[in-house]
Protein backbone atom coordinates (compact mmCIF):
# COMPACT_ATOMS: atom_id res chain seq x y z
CA UNK A 1 0.00 0.00 0.00
CA UNK A 2 1.53 3.30 -1.00
CA UNK A 3 1.61 6.17 1.42
CA UNK A 4 -0.78 8.11 -0.78
CA UNK A 5 -3.36 5.34 -0.83
CA UNK A 6 -2.97 4.85 2.87
CA UNK A 7 -3.71 8.42 3.83
CA UNK A 8 -6.25 9.46 1.21
CA UNK A 9 -9.80 8.96 2.51
CA UNK A 10 -11.87 6.53 0.46
CA UNK A 11 -14.85 8.17 -1.26
CA UNK A 12 -18.02 6.52 0.02
CA UNK A 13 -21.59 6.97 -1.12
CA UNK A 14 -24.39 7.79 1.27
CA UNK A 15 -28.14 8.38 1.04
CA UNK A 16 -30.05 6.69 -1.78
CA UNK A 17 -26.87 5.54 -3.54
CA UNK A 18 -25.78 3.64 -0.44
CA UNK A 19 -29.32 2.24 -0.12
CA UNK A 20 -29.24 1.02 -3.72
CA UNK A 21 -25.73 -0.42 -3.38
CA UNK A 22 -26.84 -2.31 -0.28
CA UNK A 23 -29.91 -3.74 -2.01
CA UNK A 24 -27.78 -4.98 -4.92
CA UNK A 25 -25.03 -6.23 -2.60
CA UNK A 26 -27.42 -8.25 -0.45
CA UNK A 27 -29.44 -9.56 -3.40
CA UNK A 28 -26.26 -10.84 -5.06
CA UNK A 29 -25.65 -13.96 -2.89
CA UNK A 30 -29.23 -15.09 -3.42
CA UNK A 31 -29.11 -14.79 -7.17
CA UNK A 32 -25.62 -16.21 -7.57
CA UNK A 33 -26.26 -18.95 -5.00
CA UNK A 34 -29.00 -20.30 -7.24
CA UNK A 35 -26.54 -20.88 -10.05
CA UNK A 36 -23.94 -22.54 -7.83
CA UNK A 37 -26.28 -24.87 -5.94
CA UNK A 38 -27.95 -26.96 -8.62
CA UNK A 39 -29.70 -29.22 -6.11
CA UNK A 40 -32.65 -26.80 -6.10
CA UNK A 41 -33.74 -28.34 -9.39
CA UNK A 42 -34.61 -31.51 -7.52
CA UNK A 43 -35.72 -30.16 -4.17
CA UNK A 44 -37.61 -27.12 -5.30
CA UNK A 45 -38.98 -28.06 -8.70
CA UNK A 46 -39.40 -31.81 -8.89
CA UNK A 47 -40.63 -32.37 -5.32
CA UNK A 48 -43.37 -29.68 -5.52
CA UNK A 49 -44.39 -31.17 -8.86
CA UNK A 50 -45.03 -34.52 -7.17
CA UNK A 51 -47.45 -32.74 -4.81
CA UNK A 52 -49.09 -31.00 -7.74
CA UNK A 53 -49.41 -34.31 -9.59
CA UNK A 54 -51.22 -35.88 -6.63
CA UNK A 55 -53.90 -33.17 -6.68
CA UNK A 56 -54.16 -33.29 -10.48
CA UNK A 57 -54.89 -37.02 -10.39
CA UNK A 58 -57.44 -36.59 -7.59
CA UNK A 59 -59.26 -33.89 -9.57
CA UNK A 60 -59.20 -35.97 -12.72
CA UNK A 61 -60.39 -39.06 -10.84
CA UNK A 62 -63.44 -37.24 -9.46
CA UNK A 63 -64.13 -35.54 -12.80
CA UNK A 64 -63.54 -31.96 -11.61
CA UNK A 65 -63.48 -29.21 -14.27
CA UNK A 66 -60.20 -29.29 -16.23
CA UNK A 67 -59.33 -25.74 -15.11
CA UNK A 68 -58.76 -27.16 -11.62
CA UNK A 69 -55.61 -28.78 -12.98
CA UNK A 70 -54.35 -25.34 -14.00
CA UNK A 71 -55.31 -23.96 -10.58
CA UNK A 72 -53.14 -26.59 -8.92
CA UNK A 73 -50.18 -25.93 -11.21
CA UNK A 74 -50.31 -22.18 -10.50
CA UNK A 75 -50.77 -22.91 -6.78
CA UNK A 76 -47.79 -25.26 -6.78
CA UNK A 77 -45.64 -22.56 -8.36
CA UNK A 78 -46.74 -19.93 -5.85
CA UNK A 79 -45.84 -22.24 -2.97
CA UNK A 80 -42.22 -21.69 -3.96
CA UNK A 81 -42.61 -18.01 -3.08
CA UNK A 82 -44.25 -18.78 0.25
CA UNK A 83 -41.44 -21.20 1.15
CA UNK A 84 -38.92 -18.57 0.15
CA UNK A 85 -40.59 -15.93 2.31
CA UNK A 86 -40.82 -18.28 5.28
CA UNK A 87 -37.36 -19.81 5.21
CA UNK A 88 -35.30 -17.14 3.52
CA UNK A 89 -36.97 -13.97 4.74
CA UNK A 90 -38.84 -14.39 8.02
CA UNK A 91 -36.33 -16.52 9.85
CA UNK A 92 -33.33 -15.22 7.91
CA UNK A 93 -32.27 -12.56 10.41
CA UNK A 94 -32.10 -15.25 13.07
CA UNK A 95 -29.75 -17.33 10.91
CA UNK A 96 -27.76 -14.21 10.01
CA UNK A 97 -27.35 -13.57 13.73
CA UNK A 98 -26.08 -17.09 14.37
CA UNK A 99 -23.66 -16.81 11.46
CA UNK A 100 -22.30 -13.49 12.68
CA UNK A 101 -23.56 -11.46 9.72
CA UNK A 102 -26.27 -9.55 11.54
CA UNK A 103 -23.76 -7.75 13.77
CA UNK A 104 -21.85 -6.66 10.66
CA UNK A 105 -25.06 -5.45 9.01
CA UNK A 106 -25.94 -3.42 12.09
CA UNK A 107 -22.56 -1.74 12.48
CA UNK A 108 -22.44 -0.85 8.78
CA UNK A 109 -23.62 2.68 7.92
CA UNK A 110 -26.39 1.32 5.74
CA UNK A 111 -30.06 0.83 6.58
CA UNK A 112 -31.34 -2.54 7.71
CA UNK A 113 -34.38 -1.97 5.50
CA UNK A 114 -32.05 -1.96 2.49
CA UNK A 115 -30.58 -5.27 3.65
CA UNK A 116 -34.07 -6.75 3.98
CA UNK A 117 -35.09 -5.37 0.61
CA UNK A 118 -31.98 -6.86 -0.97
CA UNK A 119 -32.81 -10.22 0.58
CA UNK A 120 -36.38 -9.92 -0.71
CA UNK A 121 -35.45 -8.93 -4.25
CA UNK A 122 -32.68 -11.53 -4.47
CA UNK A 123 -35.02 -14.22 -3.12
CA UNK A 124 -37.78 -13.14 -5.48
CA UNK A 125 -35.53 -13.32 -8.55
CA UNK A 126 -34.17 -16.72 -7.55
CA UNK A 127 -37.65 -18.07 -6.78
CA UNK A 128 -39.08 -16.69 -9.99
CA UNK A 129 -36.90 -19.15 -11.87
CA UNK A 130 -38.11 -22.06 -9.72
CA UNK A 131 -41.75 -21.05 -10.01
CA UNK A 132 -41.34 -20.59 -13.76
CA UNK A 133 -39.87 -24.08 -14.02
CA UNK A 134 -42.79 -25.57 -12.06
CA UNK A 135 -45.33 -23.82 -14.30
CA UNK A 136 -43.53 -24.82 -17.49
CA UNK A 137 -43.16 -28.46 -16.48
CA UNK A 138 -46.68 -28.64 -14.99
CA UNK A 139 -48.19 -27.11 -18.11
CA UNK A 140 -46.40 -29.57 -20.35
CA UNK A 141 -47.03 -32.64 -18.22
CA UNK A 142 -50.69 -31.99 -17.50
CA UNK A 143 -51.63 -30.16 -20.69
CA UNK A 144 -52.91 -26.99 -19.02
CA UNK A 145 -54.81 -24.45 -21.16
CA UNK A 146 -54.65 -20.78 -20.23
CA UNK A 147 -57.07 -18.13 -21.43
CA UNK A 148 -55.39 -14.84 -20.70
CA UNK A 149 -57.36 -11.86 -21.93
CA UNK A 150 -55.34 -9.17 -20.20
CA UNK A 151 -51.72 -10.24 -19.71
CA UNK A 152 -50.70 -6.82 -18.33
CA UNK A 153 -53.31 -7.02 -15.62
CA UNK A 154 -52.15 -10.54 -14.80
CA UNK A 155 -48.56 -9.31 -14.59
CA UNK A 156 -49.61 -6.38 -12.40
CA UNK A 157 -51.49 -8.68 -10.01
CA UNK A 158 -48.46 -10.95 -9.79
CA UNK A 159 -46.15 -8.00 -9.12
CA UNK A 160 -48.49 -6.60 -6.46
CA UNK A 161 -48.76 -10.02 -4.83
CA UNK A 162 -44.98 -10.20 -4.67
CA UNK A 163 -44.71 -6.74 -3.09
CA UNK A 164 -47.31 -7.59 -0.46
CA UNK A 165 -45.90 -11.06 0.17
CA UNK A 166 -42.30 -9.93 0.56
CA UNK A 167 -43.52 -6.95 2.58
CA UNK A 168 -45.04 -9.49 4.95
CA UNK A 169 -41.72 -11.35 4.91
CA UNK A 170 -39.82 -8.17 5.82
CA UNK A 171 -42.26 -7.48 8.63
CA UNK A 172 -41.98 -10.93 10.14
CA UNK A 173 -38.19 -10.88 9.71
CA UNK A 174 -38.12 -7.93 12.12
CA UNK A 175 -40.17 -9.86 14.66
CA UNK A 176 -37.78 -12.80 14.38
CA UNK A 177 -34.96 -10.51 15.57
CA UNK A 178 -36.19 -11.16 19.07
CA UNK A 179 -36.44 -14.93 18.68
CA UNK A 180 -33.79 -17.48 19.47
CA UNK A 181 -33.89 -21.10 18.49
CA UNK A 182 -37.67 -21.17 18.66
CA UNK A 183 -37.65 -19.36 15.28
CA UNK A 184 -37.44 -22.75 13.61
CA UNK A 185 -40.66 -23.92 15.32
CA UNK A 186 -42.61 -20.79 14.43
CA UNK A 187 -41.67 -21.18 10.78
CA UNK A 188 -42.79 -24.80 10.81
CA UNK A 189 -46.01 -23.72 12.50
CA UNK A 190 -46.78 -21.21 9.77
CA UNK A 191 -46.19 -23.61 6.88
CA UNK A 192 -49.06 -26.09 6.70
CA UNK A 193 -51.95 -23.81 7.81
CA UNK A 194 -51.01 -21.34 5.08
CA UNK A 195 -51.06 -24.15 2.49
CA UNK A 196 -54.70 -24.61 3.42
CA UNK A 197 -55.75 -20.99 3.93
CA UNK A 198 -54.15 -19.69 0.74
CA UNK A 199 -56.04 -22.15 -1.40
CA UNK A 200 -52.88 -23.38 -3.08
CA UNK A 201 -54.61 -26.47 -4.39
CA UNK A 202 -58.25 -25.37 -4.62
CA UNK A 203 -60.27 -22.17 -5.20
CA UNK A 204 -60.23 -19.87 -2.17
CA UNK A 205 -64.01 -19.48 -2.42
CA UNK A 206 -64.46 -23.04 -1.16
CA UNK A 207 -63.31 -22.00 2.32
CA UNK A 208 -66.52 -20.01 2.79
CA UNK A 209 -66.77 -16.22 2.82
CA UNK A 210 -65.59 -15.44 6.35
CA UNK A 211 -62.72 -17.89 6.46
CA UNK A 212 -61.61 -16.76 2.99
CA UNK A 213 -61.83 -13.14 4.10
CA UNK A 214 -59.70 -13.92 7.15
CA UNK A 215 -57.23 -15.79 4.95
CA UNK A 216 -56.92 -12.70 2.76
CA UNK A 217 -54.44 -11.25 5.26
CA UNK A 218 -51.98 -13.62 3.54
CA UNK A 219 -51.27 -11.84 0.24
CA UNK A 220 -50.95 -15.15 -1.60
CA UNK A 221 -54.63 -15.95 -1.02
CA UNK A 222 -55.90 -12.87 -2.84
CA UNK A 223 -53.08 -12.85 -5.39
CA UNK A 224 -53.58 -16.46 -6.35
CA UNK A 225 -57.33 -16.01 -6.59
CA UNK A 226 -56.98 -12.96 -8.83
CA UNK A 227 -54.38 -14.65 -11.05
CA UNK A 228 -56.63 -17.70 -11.51
CA UNK A 229 -59.49 -15.43 -12.48
CA UNK A 230 -57.27 -13.75 -15.08
CA UNK A 231 -55.69 -16.92 -16.50
CA UNK A 232 -58.51 -19.46 -16.85
CA UNK A 233 -61.86 -19.53 -18.57
CA UNK A 234 -63.78 -20.67 -15.45
CA UNK A 235 -61.63 -18.45 -13.21
CA UNK A 236 -64.11 -15.59 -12.72
CA UNK A 237 -66.96 -17.92 -11.79
CA UNK A 238 -64.78 -19.65 -9.17
CA UNK A 239 -63.20 -16.45 -7.85
CA UNK A 240 -63.65 -15.22 -4.28
CA UNK A 241 -63.96 -11.45 -4.86
CA UNK A 242 -63.79 -9.35 -8.03
CA UNK A 243 -60.30 -8.77 -9.44
CA UNK A 244 -60.40 -4.96 -8.96
CA UNK A 245 -61.37 -5.41 -5.31
CA UNK A 246 -58.64 -7.96 -4.80
CA UNK A 247 -56.13 -5.58 -6.43
CA UNK A 248 -57.25 -2.79 -4.09
CA UNK A 249 -56.91 -5.07 -1.05
CA UNK A 250 -53.46 -6.22 -2.16
CA UNK A 251 -52.38 -2.59 -2.57
CA UNK A 252 -53.50 -1.80 0.96
CA UNK A 253 -51.72 -4.90 2.30
CA UNK A 254 -48.50 -3.91 0.48
CA UNK A 255 -48.47 -0.44 2.03
CA UNK A 256 -49.42 -1.70 5.49
CA UNK A 257 -46.80 -4.46 5.52
CA UNK A 258 -43.98 -2.22 4.27
CA UNK A 259 -44.77 0.55 6.76
CA UNK A 260 -45.14 -2.00 9.56
CA UNK A 261 -41.84 -3.61 8.54
CA UNK A 262 -40.03 -0.29 8.78
CA UNK A 263 -41.55 0.56 12.15
CA UNK A 264 -41.06 -2.90 13.61
CA UNK A 265 -37.49 -3.05 12.41
CA UNK A 266 -36.58 0.21 14.14
CA UNK A 267 -38.46 -0.68 17.32
CA UNK A 268 -37.31 -4.26 17.60
CA UNK A 269 -33.71 -3.40 16.73
CA UNK A 270 -33.69 -0.96 19.65
CA UNK A 271 -35.26 -3.56 21.92
CA UNK A 272 -32.85 -6.26 20.77
CA UNK A 273 -29.92 -3.91 21.46
CA UNK A 274 -31.15 -3.33 24.99
CA UNK A 275 -31.74 -7.02 25.60
CA UNK A 276 -28.46 -8.13 24.01
CA UNK A 277 -30.16 -10.16 21.28
CA UNK A 278 -28.41 -8.71 18.25
CA UNK A 279 -25.38 -10.94 18.42
CA UNK A 280 -24.92 -14.67 18.66
CA UNK A 281 -24.41 -16.14 22.09
CA UNK A 282 -21.34 -18.20 21.42
CA UNK A 283 -18.82 -15.63 22.55
Amino acid at each position, binding site marked *: *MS*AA*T*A*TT*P*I*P*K*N*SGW*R*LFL*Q*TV*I*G*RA*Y*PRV*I*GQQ*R*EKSWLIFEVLLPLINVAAYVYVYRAIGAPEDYVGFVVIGGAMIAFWMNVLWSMSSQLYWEKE*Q*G*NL*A*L*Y*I*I*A*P*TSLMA*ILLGMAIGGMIATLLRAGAIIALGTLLFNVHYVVINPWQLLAVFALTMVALYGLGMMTASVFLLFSREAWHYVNLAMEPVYLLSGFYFPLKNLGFWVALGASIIPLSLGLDAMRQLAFRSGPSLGFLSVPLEIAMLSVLSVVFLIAARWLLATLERLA*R*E*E*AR*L*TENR*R
Partner: protein
Amino acid sequence: MNTEPPLNDLAIKTEALTRIYKIRGAKKGDLRERVALEEINLSVPRGELFGLLGPNGAGKTTLIKILTTLLAPTRGRAWVAGYDVVREADKVRPRINMVSGGETSGYGLLTVRENLWMFAQFYGIPSRLAHQRIQMLLEMIGLADRANTKSSDLSTGLRQKMNIVRGFMTDPEVLFLDEPTLGLDVQAAREVRAFIRRWMDENPQRTILLTTHYMQEAEELCDRVAIIHNGRILACDTPEHLKQQVQHEAIFQLVVEPEQPLNIQTLETLPGVLRLHQQWHNGGLQIEISLAEESVLPQVIGELERQQAHLRSLQKRQPSLEDVFVQLVGLRMEEVERERGNGYHADPQE
Protein backbone atom coordinates in the same frame (compact mmCIF):
# COMPACT_ATOMS: atom_id res chain seq x y z
CA MET B 1 -5.97 20.10 36.68
CA ASN B 2 -7.79 18.08 34.02
CA THR B 3 -5.29 17.18 31.29
CA GLU B 4 -7.63 15.02 29.22
CA PRO B 5 -7.73 16.01 25.54
CA PRO B 6 -11.01 17.29 24.11
CA LEU B 7 -13.57 14.70 22.95
CA ASN B 8 -12.76 15.30 19.28
CA ASP B 9 -9.14 14.28 19.81
CA LEU B 10 -10.21 11.01 21.36
CA ALA B 11 -11.06 7.96 19.31
CA ILE B 12 -12.81 6.31 22.25
CA LYS B 13 -14.04 7.62 25.53
CA THR B 14 -16.19 5.96 28.17
CA GLU B 15 -17.61 7.37 31.38
CA ALA B 16 -18.70 5.03 34.15
CA LEU B 17 -19.83 2.54 31.50
CA THR B 18 -21.78 -0.32 33.00
CA ARG B 19 -23.61 -3.26 31.50
CA ILE B 20 -25.70 -5.68 33.49
CA TYR B 21 -27.14 -8.75 31.80
CA LYS B 22 -30.39 -10.22 32.98
CA ILE B 23 -30.18 -13.98 32.84
CA ARG B 24 -33.26 -16.15 32.93
CA GLY B 25 -33.08 -19.17 35.22
CA ALA B 26 -34.60 -22.58 34.65
CA LYS B 27 -37.76 -21.68 36.59
CA LYS B 28 -40.30 -19.22 35.27
CA GLY B 29 -39.72 -15.74 36.64
CA ASP B 30 -36.28 -16.68 37.90
CA LEU B 31 -34.17 -13.71 36.79
CA ARG B 32 -30.56 -13.20 37.82
CA GLU B 33 -28.26 -10.30 37.10
CA ARG B 34 -24.66 -10.54 35.93
CA VAL B 35 -22.48 -7.47 35.89
CA ALA B 36 -20.42 -7.72 32.70
CA LEU B 37 -18.92 -4.21 32.87
CA GLU B 38 -18.66 -2.01 35.90
CA GLU B 39 -17.93 1.71 35.86
CA ILE B 40 -15.45 1.60 32.97
CA ASN B 41 -13.61 4.86 32.35
CA LEU B 42 -11.38 4.84 29.31
CA SER B 43 -9.82 7.43 27.03
CA VAL B 44 -8.10 6.33 23.84
CA PRO B 45 -6.51 9.11 21.78
CA ARG B 46 -6.60 8.97 18.00
CA GLY B 47 -3.69 7.09 16.50
CA GLU B 48 -3.30 4.61 19.32
CA LEU B 49 -3.30 0.84 19.19
CA PHE B 50 -5.02 0.15 22.47
CA GLY B 51 -5.20 -3.32 23.97
CA LEU B 52 -7.73 -4.82 26.31
CA LEU B 53 -6.14 -7.78 28.01
CA GLY B 54 -8.13 -10.21 30.09
CA PRO B 55 -9.41 -13.76 30.33
CA ASN B 56 -12.53 -14.97 28.56
CA GLY B 57 -15.59 -13.58 30.31
CA ALA B 58 -13.75 -10.53 31.62
CA GLY B 59 -16.01 -8.11 29.72
CA LYS B 60 -13.86 -7.39 26.66
CA THR B 61 -16.43 -8.42 24.06
CA THR B 62 -19.24 -6.67 25.93
CA LEU B 63 -17.25 -3.44 25.82
CA ILE B 64 -16.65 -3.86 22.08
CA LYS B 65 -20.35 -4.56 21.49
CA ILE B 66 -21.29 -1.32 23.23
CA LEU B 67 -18.68 0.71 21.37
CA THR B 68 -19.78 -0.72 18.02
CA THR B 69 -23.45 0.18 18.73
CA LEU B 70 -24.54 -3.45 19.02
CA LEU B 71 -25.44 -3.31 22.68
CA ALA B 72 -26.94 -0.62 24.88
CA PRO B 73 -25.15 0.16 28.12
CA THR B 74 -27.14 -0.18 31.32
CA ARG B 75 -25.51 2.97 32.72
CA GLY B 76 -22.83 5.43 31.74
CA ARG B 77 -21.88 6.83 28.36
CA ALA B 78 -19.48 6.08 25.53
CA TRP B 79 -18.21 8.04 22.54
CA VAL B 80 -16.47 6.75 19.44
CA ALA B 81 -14.83 9.18 17.00
CA GLY B 82 -16.44 11.96 19.01
CA TYR B 83 -20.02 10.65 18.78
CA ASP B 84 -22.27 9.13 21.41
CA VAL B 85 -22.71 5.43 20.64
CA VAL B 86 -26.34 5.40 21.76
CA ARG B 87 -27.69 8.76 20.62
CA GLU B 88 -25.56 9.18 17.51
CA ALA B 89 -25.12 5.58 16.37
CA ASP B 90 -25.73 6.65 12.75
CA LYS B 91 -22.67 8.93 12.93
CA VAL B 92 -20.51 6.33 14.65
CA ARG B 93 -21.17 3.54 12.12
CA PRO B 94 -19.57 5.08 9.01
CA ARG B 95 -16.39 5.58 11.04
CA ILE B 96 -15.90 2.10 12.46
CA ASN B 97 -15.51 -1.53 11.58
CA MET B 98 -15.02 -4.72 13.53
CA VAL B 99 -13.34 -8.09 13.10
CA SER B 100 -13.77 -10.93 15.55
CA GLY B 101 -11.70 -14.06 15.97
CA GLY B 102 -13.38 -17.24 14.77
CA GLU B 103 -15.85 -15.19 12.78
CA THR B 104 -17.90 -17.10 10.20
CA SER B 105 -19.47 -14.12 8.49
CA GLY B 106 -20.20 -13.93 4.78
CA TYR B 107 -21.70 -16.62 2.60
CA GLY B 108 -19.98 -19.90 1.89
CA LEU B 109 -21.29 -20.03 -1.68
CA LEU B 110 -19.57 -16.76 -2.54
CA THR B 111 -15.89 -16.46 -3.32
CA VAL B 112 -13.54 -14.45 -1.14
CA ARG B 113 -13.66 -11.56 -3.61
CA GLU B 114 -17.46 -11.64 -3.86
CA ASN B 115 -17.93 -11.71 -0.10
CA LEU B 116 -15.64 -8.73 0.33
CA TRP B 117 -17.33 -6.85 -2.51
CA MET B 118 -20.70 -7.45 -0.88
CA PHE B 119 -19.57 -5.96 2.43
CA ALA B 120 -17.98 -3.02 0.60
CA GLN B 121 -21.42 -2.23 -0.85
CA PHE B 122 -22.84 -1.83 2.66
CA TYR B 123 -20.32 0.96 3.21
CA GLY B 124 -21.08 2.72 -0.06
CA ILE B 125 -17.64 2.11 -1.58
CA PRO B 126 -18.02 2.42 -5.36
CA SER B 127 -17.70 -1.00 -7.00
CA ARG B 128 -14.55 -0.28 -9.01
CA LEU B 129 -12.71 1.20 -6.06
CA ALA B 130 -13.89 -1.68 -3.87
CA HIS B 131 -12.37 -4.20 -6.29
CA GLN B 132 -9.08 -2.27 -6.37
CA ARG B 133 -8.88 -2.14 -2.57
CA ILE B 134 -9.85 -5.78 -2.20
CA GLN B 135 -7.10 -6.83 -4.61
CA MET B 136 -4.51 -4.62 -2.89
CA LEU B 137 -5.37 -5.85 0.61
CA LEU B 138 -5.57 -9.49 -0.47
CA GLU B 139 -2.07 -9.16 -1.88
CA MET B 140 -0.83 -7.49 1.30
CA ILE B 141 -2.16 -10.26 3.53
CA GLY B 142 -1.16 -13.06 1.17
CA LEU B 143 -4.61 -14.19 0.10
CA ALA B 144 -4.64 -12.98 -3.52
CA ASP B 145 -4.21 -16.51 -4.89
CA ARG B 146 -7.41 -17.59 -3.11
CA ALA B 147 -9.52 -14.61 -4.21
CA ASN B 148 -11.73 -16.80 -6.39
CA THR B 149 -12.07 -19.63 -3.88
CA LYS B 150 -15.46 -20.13 -2.22
CA SER B 151 -15.18 -18.98 1.36
CA SER B 152 -16.62 -22.30 2.56
CA ASP B 153 -13.49 -23.96 1.17
CA LEU B 154 -11.06 -21.83 3.21
CA SER B 155 -9.17 -23.04 6.26
CA THR B 156 -9.68 -21.20 9.57
CA GLY B 157 -6.53 -19.16 9.07
CA LEU B 158 -7.37 -18.12 5.53
CA ARG B 159 -10.93 -17.33 6.51
CA GLN B 160 -9.67 -15.06 9.27
CA LYS B 161 -7.42 -13.30 6.77
CA MET B 162 -10.52 -12.67 4.66
CA ASN B 163 -12.27 -11.24 7.72
CA ILE B 164 -9.28 -9.02 8.40
CA VAL B 165 -9.45 -7.64 4.85
CA ARG B 166 -13.19 -7.06 5.34
CA GLY B 167 -12.53 -4.95 8.41
CA PHE B 168 -9.64 -2.94 6.96
CA MET B 169 -11.13 -2.50 3.49
CA THR B 170 -13.43 0.33 4.58
CA ASP B 171 -10.49 2.24 6.09
CA PRO B 172 -12.29 2.95 9.38
CA GLU B 173 -11.22 5.72 11.72
CA VAL B 174 -11.59 3.31 14.61
CA LEU B 175 -11.22 -0.42 14.13
CA PHE B 176 -12.30 -2.96 16.73
CA LEU B 177 -10.42 -6.24 16.68
CA ASP B 178 -11.89 -8.81 19.04
CA GLU B 179 -9.36 -11.61 19.55
CA PRO B 180 -8.27 -11.35 15.89
CA THR B 181 -5.74 -14.18 16.06
CA LEU B 182 -7.90 -16.61 18.02
CA GLY B 183 -7.33 -20.17 16.86
CA LEU B 184 -4.75 -19.24 14.22
CA ASP B 185 -1.51 -21.13 13.80
CA VAL B 186 1.83 -19.47 14.53
CA GLN B 187 2.51 -18.35 10.99
CA ALA B 188 -0.98 -17.01 10.25
CA ALA B 189 -1.07 -15.15 13.59
CA ARG B 190 2.31 -13.60 12.86
CA GLU B 191 1.16 -12.44 9.44
CA VAL B 192 -2.03 -10.95 10.84
CA ARG B 193 -0.08 -9.12 13.54
CA ALA B 194 2.39 -7.76 10.99
CA PHE B 195 -0.50 -6.59 8.83
CA ILE B 196 -2.14 -4.80 11.77
CA ARG B 197 1.10 -3.05 12.73
CA ARG B 198 1.78 -1.98 9.16
CA TRP B 199 -1.72 -0.57 8.76
CA MET B 200 -1.31 1.49 11.92
CA ASP B 201 2.13 2.75 10.93
CA GLU B 202 0.83 4.04 7.60
CA ASN B 203 -1.55 6.62 9.00
CA PRO B 204 -1.16 8.30 12.40
CA GLN B 205 -4.90 9.05 12.58
CA ARG B 206 -5.96 5.43 12.64
CA THR B 207 -7.00 3.85 15.91
CA ILE B 208 -7.41 0.23 16.87
CA LEU B 209 -8.97 -1.25 19.96
CA LEU B 210 -7.76 -4.81 20.21
CA THR B 211 -8.93 -7.36 22.72
CA THR B 212 -6.83 -10.40 23.42
CA HIS B 213 -6.03 -12.92 26.06
CA TYR B 214 -2.63 -13.57 24.53
CA MET B 215 -0.06 -11.69 26.61
CA GLN B 216 2.55 -11.76 23.89
CA GLU B 217 0.16 -10.26 21.38
CA ALA B 218 -0.66 -7.37 23.70
CA GLU B 219 3.01 -6.74 24.43
CA GLU B 220 4.04 -6.92 20.80
CA LEU B 221 1.29 -4.80 19.29
CA CYS B 222 -0.19 -2.37 21.76
CA ASP B 223 0.85 1.18 22.59
CA ARG B 224 -1.18 0.96 25.79
CA VAL B 225 -2.87 -1.93 27.52
CA ALA B 226 -5.78 -2.06 29.96
CA ILE B 227 -6.01 -5.17 32.07
CA ILE B 228 -9.65 -6.11 32.56
CA HIS B 229 -11.02 -8.66 34.99
CA ASN B 230 -14.59 -9.32 36.15
CA GLY B 231 -15.84 -6.29 34.23
CA ARG B 232 -13.41 -3.85 35.80
CA ILE B 233 -10.27 -2.18 34.53
CA LEU B 234 -7.53 -3.03 37.01
CA ALA B 235 -4.66 -1.18 35.34
CA CYS B 236 -4.06 0.85 32.21
CA ASP B 237 -0.69 1.97 30.89
CA THR B 238 2.00 1.17 28.34
CA PRO B 239 3.28 -2.42 28.51
CA GLU B 240 6.64 -1.09 29.74
CA HIS B 241 5.12 0.93 32.57
CA LEU B 242 2.86 -1.94 33.57
CA LYS B 243 5.83 -4.27 33.75
CA GLN B 244 7.70 -1.75 35.87
CA GLN B 245 5.08 -2.40 38.55
CA VAL B 246 6.64 -5.82 39.04
CA GLN B 247 10.20 -4.80 38.13
CA HIS B 248 11.27 -4.83 41.78
CA GLU B 249 10.49 -8.52 41.96
CA ALA B 250 13.00 -11.18 41.02
CA ILE B 251 11.34 -13.80 38.87
CA PHE B 252 13.01 -17.16 38.38
CA GLN B 253 12.12 -20.17 36.32
CA LEU B 254 13.35 -23.44 37.75
CA VAL B 255 13.03 -26.98 36.43
CA VAL B 256 13.38 -29.69 39.06
CA GLU B 257 13.08 -33.46 39.21
CA PRO B 258 11.55 -34.37 42.56
CA GLU B 259 12.06 -37.86 43.98
CA GLN B 260 8.85 -37.52 45.96
CA PRO B 261 5.81 -35.20 45.76
CA LEU B 262 6.88 -31.67 46.49
CA ASN B 263 5.47 -29.81 49.46
CA ILE B 264 4.71 -26.57 47.68
CA GLN B 265 3.20 -24.94 50.74
CA THR B 266 6.55 -25.00 52.52
CA LEU B 267 8.11 -23.19 49.56
CA GLU B 268 5.31 -20.64 49.40
CA THR B 269 5.64 -19.76 53.07
CA LEU B 270 9.36 -19.10 52.90
CA PRO B 271 10.07 -15.46 53.82
CA GLY B 272 10.48 -13.36 50.67
CA VAL B 273 8.52 -15.71 48.36
CA LEU B 274 5.74 -13.64 46.79
CA ARG B 275 4.14 -16.05 44.34
CA LEU B 276 4.75 -19.47 42.97
CA HIS B 277 3.37 -21.39 40.04
CA GLN B 278 4.17 -24.98 39.12
CA GLN B 279 3.42 -27.18 36.15
CA TRP B 280 4.82 -30.38 34.66
CA HIS B 281 6.69 -29.76 31.47
CA ASN B 282 8.68 -32.29 29.41
CA GLY B 283 9.06 -34.68 32.34
CA GLY B 284 10.27 -32.03 34.78
CA LEU B 285 8.45 -29.85 37.26
CA GLN B 286 8.63 -26.26 36.10
CA ILE B 287 8.40 -23.75 38.92
CA GLU B 288 8.00 -20.08 38.34
CA ILE B 289 8.72 -18.14 41.47
CA SER B 290 8.53 -14.43 42.25
CA LEU B 291 10.78 -13.27 45.04
CA ALA B 292 10.88 -10.00 46.94
CA GLU B 293 14.63 -9.94 46.25
CA GLU B 294 17.25 -12.16 44.67
CA SER B 295 18.88 -12.98 47.98
CA VAL B 296 15.91 -15.21 48.84
CA LEU B 297 16.90 -17.65 46.05
CA PRO B 298 19.48 -19.71 48.05
CA GLN B 299 16.81 -20.46 50.66
CA VAL B 300 14.45 -21.66 47.94
CA ILE B 301 17.12 -23.91 46.44
CA GLY B 302 18.02 -25.16 49.91
CA GLU B 303 14.39 -26.09 50.57
CA LEU B 304 14.17 -27.89 47.22
CA GLU B 305 17.30 -29.92 48.05
CA ARG B 306 15.87 -30.71 51.48
CA GLN B 307 12.81 -32.11 49.71
CA GLN B 308 15.07 -34.16 47.39
CA ALA B 309 14.09 -32.23 44.28
CA HIS B 310 17.06 -32.07 41.93
CA LEU B 311 17.57 -28.77 40.19
CA ARG B 312 17.90 -29.24 36.43
CA SER B 313 17.86 -25.63 35.28
CA LEU B 314 17.56 -22.13 36.67
CA GLN B 315 16.83 -19.00 34.72
CA LYS B 316 16.11 -15.44 35.70
CA ARG B 317 13.24 -14.04 33.70
CA GLN B 318 12.22 -10.49 32.84
CA PRO B 319 8.76 -9.55 34.11
CA SER B 320 5.95 -9.96 31.58
CA LEU B 321 2.34 -8.79 31.41
CA GLU B 322 1.43 -12.20 32.79
CA ASP B 323 3.28 -11.23 35.99
CA VAL B 324 1.39 -7.95 36.08
CA PHE B 325 -1.88 -9.83 35.69
CA VAL B 326 -0.95 -12.24 38.48
CA GLN B 327 0.01 -9.36 40.75
CA LEU B 328 -3.31 -7.63 40.11
CA VAL B 329 -5.65 -10.61 40.16
CA GLY B 330 -3.77 -13.07 42.36
CA LEU B 331 -4.15 -15.82 39.76
CA ARG B 332 -2.65 -16.57 36.37
CA MET B 333 -4.96 -16.02 33.44
CA GLU B 334 -5.19 -19.74 32.74
CA GLU B 335 -6.18 -20.34 36.36
CA VAL B 336 -8.96 -17.76 36.10
CA GLU B 337 -10.24 -19.41 32.95
CA ARG B 338 -9.98 -22.88 34.44
CA GLU B 339 -12.03 -21.72 37.41
CA ARG B 340 -14.66 -20.47 35.00
CA GLY B 341 -14.49 -23.68 32.99
CA ASN B 342 -13.62 -21.84 29.81
CA GLY B 343 -11.15 -24.44 28.60
CA TYR B 344 -8.20 -22.07 28.43
CA HIS B 345 -5.64 -22.71 25.75
CA ALA B 346 -2.17 -21.47 26.52
CA ASP B 347 -1.00 -19.18 23.75
CA PRO B 348 -0.39 -21.53 20.80
CA GLN B 349 1.32 -18.71 18.97
CA GLU B 350 4.18 -18.22 21.37
